[in-house]
């Protein structure tokens, strides 16, 4: 295909109708640390593995899960520095919304605005898309909500989702263990198990499950 000829410029469509840069951005996300989120009946949990490049790194200085408002949090998969920019912009947007409407920003609104920012960077000159996918977890008057925002700017609401490495394994595991009426504690438990999936062998997981249950 002539796709490779169109893979360098973001603002040019390839003949197959794709923006190849965005595909590459999704690849960058796919090679990032696993992160996942689960929506329970009375809350949402997001989790990620804090894998540091060496034991010498001060782990207290690394914060992968960030707070956007007192009731909305976010975790990412992909390039950390890109996520910092998005977190900063989202916080500011949430605050501006609050200032204007004297109402705490609903989760859907914040997700929409963040996605709009990500989309801007796919249609402007001289910039590249963000190399992160975000999992936004929040609790507002519509209850617990979990959204995934991709580098293209599209967003989806999930009951449970995973991003980054080992996505297929993690999602299969979540599909098996997810129930609609899960409590928050169960959700936390499931999240940890799903993360461990990628790290431990099946035998070790069996041992752990027996220990816990």
């Amino acid at each position: 295909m002539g796709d490779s000829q169109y893979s360098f410029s973001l603002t040019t469509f390839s003949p197959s109708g794709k923006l190849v840069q965005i595909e590459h951005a999704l690849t960058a996300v796919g090679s990032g640390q696993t992160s996942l989120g689960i929506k329970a009946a009375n809350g949402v949990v997001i989790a990620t593995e804090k894998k540091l490049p060496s034991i010498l790194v001060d782990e207290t200085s690394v914060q992968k899960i960030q707070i956007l408002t007192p009731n909305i949090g976010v975790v990412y998969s992909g390039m950390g520095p890109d996520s910092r920019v998005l977190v900063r912009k989202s916080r500011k947007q949430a605050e501006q919304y609050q200032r204007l409407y004297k109402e705490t920003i609903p989760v859907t609104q914040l997700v929409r605005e963040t996605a709009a920012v990500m989309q801007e960077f796919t249609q402007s000159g001289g910039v590249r898309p963000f190399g992160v996918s975000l999992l936004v977890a929040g609790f507002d008057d519509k209850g617990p909500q979990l959204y995934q925002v991709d580098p293209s700017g599209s967003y989806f609401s999930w009951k449970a989702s995973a991003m980054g490495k080992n996505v297929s394994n993690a999602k299969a595991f979540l599909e098996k263990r997810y129930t609609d009426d899960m409590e928050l504690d169960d959700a936390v438990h499931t999240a940890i198990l799903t993360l461990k999936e990628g790290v431990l062998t099946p035998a070790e997981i069996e041992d752990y499950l027996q220990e816990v249950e």
Partner: protein
Amino acid sequence: MGMKGNGSNHECSRERVKGEEEAAAELLLCREPIRIMSKGEVDYVHARGGFSFDSCRRNEMLLNKGLKPSSFLKTGTTIVGLIFQDGVILGADTRATEGPIVADKNCEKIHYMAPNIYCCGAGTAADTEAVTDTISSHLKLHRYHTARESRVVTALTLLKSHLFRYQGHVSAALVLGGVDVTGPHLHTIYPHGSTDSLPFATMGSGSLAAMAVFESKYHEGLSRDEGVKLVCEAICSGIFNDLGSGSNVDICVITKGQKEYLRNHLLPNPRTYISSKGYSFSKKT
């Protein structure tokens, strides 16, 4: 009272609070940063033109032609603050005036800035509200980024920079107080952007009455109850002796890790004239 710098500057700003605002004849076309209320921008961006002083010229021309300026809601006010042994106490009256009319008998003059910082405002009510809201937002974002409690000097610097940028046209005279990691702090901020750091402070049209009480009764190491009592006395002095202040007393006590917002702590002016039987007027009266 801390009289740093030019004494006449202080006079100027007190006038602003008590009487009518003089038309500003300066024409400043400055390139100053304003915050853009739309998506995308993270930092301040220089807008073309900045604050436009064109209307000031037009207003002056209209005044010369004899047009009376529209009056705006001012808080001819008594606001005070003092530092006691565990922290800071702020106090304010609750009357908002529009010229000779009382527009709001029970307005809130003690504004929230941060969980550990509160600010009393005198001057044009809209200005004090807007400026404290804006800086409060700023401080909140700063707290998220730094994961630390806000400091009083941060609020102070943000407020004074804002007021200086508007060259005194934002008519807000503030008493800022709070307790942070470095201890209790109390500051006064004048509409042109100058600040003082004091153990006890008063602002507004009733400031002289309140200051008289402080000067005679304040001493270091006050306990909480003594401090609250002194602040009430000072505000009451303003309420009873100044026309621009009245109604009730609001108090805010801030200590390390805790704050108490005592809305309408004292009601020295209750309504006593409502007849429960109602009034009857015979026809043709």
